[in-house]
């Protein structure tokens, strides 16, 4: 899946308040989603066209992928049109549904009025004084991603205890822990407990790495 390719271009969601005249790219960073959908659709198209079909059942194994391709192309195009017509600045407001469920429907069902909407805003009312260039904090996300990649690369060579402790430490550091030395201990404790509980207790096989070789 080509999911990682979109990262560098993702910084286009500029803060609208600081830019009174927003450029074309403002609020249109959602084109990344369109790109992912098209990439997925093209991948499926190539895969379907080059498929080595076994057997002679009708409808065959290519039938359903074609349907999925059509859905993906259609929905990607519609989404692109929608973003072009009405760009959306980052949706900071918290509301019922929060993107997952239709706020309109929940308003009707729950007979929600202004009080309930107000309540959602209570939690985020203190708008931070500082503004940032991008909505997403790419530094934190980047550190976390690097930690994950390092973990997967190190897991087999150095074993679960050390690599998991490293991952724990990196994520805690990225998310704002101020006690790096203490965290090394917490991370090691966490990874050792999981190794004991799930490796010895439940019999899951976790790589022991070079430490396993020494013991």
């Amino acid at each position, binding site marked *: *899946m080509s*999911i990682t390719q*979109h990262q560098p271009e993702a910084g286009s969601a500029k803060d609208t308040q600081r830019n009174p005249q927003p450029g074309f790219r403002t609020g249109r960073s959602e084109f*990344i*989603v369109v790109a*992912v959908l098209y990439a*997925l659709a093209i*991948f*499926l198209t190539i*895969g379907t066209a080059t498929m080595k079909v076994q*057997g002679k*059942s*009708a*409808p*065959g*194994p290519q039938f*359903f*992928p074609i349907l*999925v391709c059509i*859905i*993906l192309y259609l*929905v990607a195009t519609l989404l692109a049109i929608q973003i072009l017509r009405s760009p959306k600045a980052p*949706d900071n407001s918290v509301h*019922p*549904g929060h*993107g*997952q*469920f*239709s706020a309109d*429907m*929940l*308003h009707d069902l*729950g*007979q929600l009025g202004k*009080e309930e909407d107000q*309540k959602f805003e209570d*939690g985020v009312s203190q708008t*931070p004084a500082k503004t*940032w260039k991008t*909505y997403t*904090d790419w530094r934190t*996300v980047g550190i976390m*991603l690097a930690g*994950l*990649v390092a*973990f*997967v690369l190190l897991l087999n060579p150095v074993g679960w205890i050390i690599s*998991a402790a490293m*991952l*724990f430490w990196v*994520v*805690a*550091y990225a998310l*704002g*822990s101020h006690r790096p030395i203490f965290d090394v201990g917490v*991370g090691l404790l966490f*990874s050792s407990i*999981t190794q004991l509980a*799930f490796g010895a207790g439940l019999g*899951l096989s976790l790589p022991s790495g070079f430490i396993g070789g020494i013991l």
Partner: protein
Amino acid sequence: MEQLELLMGGFASALTPINLLWVLIGAVLGTAVGVLPGLGSAMAVALLLPVTFSLEPTAAFIMFAGIYFGGLFGDSTSGILLNTPGNSSAMASTFEGHRMAKSGQAAKALATCAIGAFIGGLIATTLVVFFAPVLVKMATVFGPAEYFALAVFAFLAISAVVSESVIRGIAALGIGLALALAGIDGPSGTARFTLGMPQLFDGISVIVITVGLLALGEVFQIASRIHRDPAATQIKTKGRARLNLTDFKKALPAWLRGTAFGAPFGLIPAGGAEVPTFLAYGTEKQLAKRRNDPEFGTTGSIRGLAAPEAAANATAGTAMGALLALGLPTSATAAIMLAAFQQYGMQPGPLLFERSGDLVWALLASLFIGLVILVMINMPFASVWAKLLSIPKHYLYAGITVFSMLGVYAVSSAILDLWLLIAIGLLGFLMRRYNIPLAPVLIAVILGPMAETELRRALAVSEGDLGILVGSPITVTLYAVLAAALAISAIQHLRHRASSKA
């Protein structure tokens, strides 16, 4: 009363000391994950599912019963004390619940939730025991065309009817269907979209997809905002959670009304408990207005909290029935449960009751046992659970990250799965960032293969004639109801757009 006999058999196999221990462990873990801020019951099930795979099936499902209801018990705690519901199904209980907490009635609010969850779950599970055989009988008349119609109904209900934006809902559906396509095609034996990698012949593991989207995606989302968004403030609770008789009498009708709203929705694939909880909340609001209840909307009304809470658990209870008897997951959490069954080579549906009847009844019995254990560990220790909310966020999410890696690696011991997990985690982050709903992906991943098989089977029988898809009263009814629901939701969106412009 054949069911009662079977249920007693289920209790007999579930009530061994070791199985009781599994329910207890499941209940404690489920509640803990549910209580943690930002994590709901769906995450509890997704994170803990891989861990249960090392157990034998009966023990695993018994533990799962505890996790399933445990997550629901914990869901509302963070909503009440922090104003951040763990799951969207706990959103409606947050309105009045947080008001009660703010006016110094936090312990009472937590007790109302625990008892509400117990009552809702108990009634719904009882209904499942008596009506599951009826559902099974109904399901035996279902042919390929009917099952395909059911899948289409679930797909569109969850992606178009209840979602914020129809385009984004369908986009999520498409992503889910695409993810489910990888692997060997069952009927023909053709390798599809595997890039020639033998590790992908079995497809992308559902565990990888659920843990990636729900757990890792959430951590990425938190990471992208943690240094920028203001932190929520927690309200402290003291003492035991208990209700006095007057409060109990006040809340009881509301619990029952909530259960009545919740129970039928477990059978409808509309994404879970959001619709019934908001319906229950709206009803209580109207009733409060009629009786001039001064508490509602000010210091927090116990009824306004009790009804949605019972509705949420009642939906979860009957959703279990729809899952076991029809093989139809009606919510994201139920979809993950279905994946658990498939992991053990079992396909929920009419045949499950015949082939693995013992296991099904043991599972249903342990749902009852789980509820009793949960109310016992939630009432006296509510303030102990609330302490979990003060775990620093960076440790909490570091722990979740490590745990997701552990779970996925434990299932297959494959490094490739870990890379896929990171990729799908980023996808989950992207979807959260742009408000694309996650539930349609999970439903599509689980039901996609079934929809494909049944569609091809139906068309093979009819030799390509599309008429077979609308050839029976059941399918026609399903499509008609779906069309009506789509029309209503379209009118709703247009009306709100018009009123927000005016």
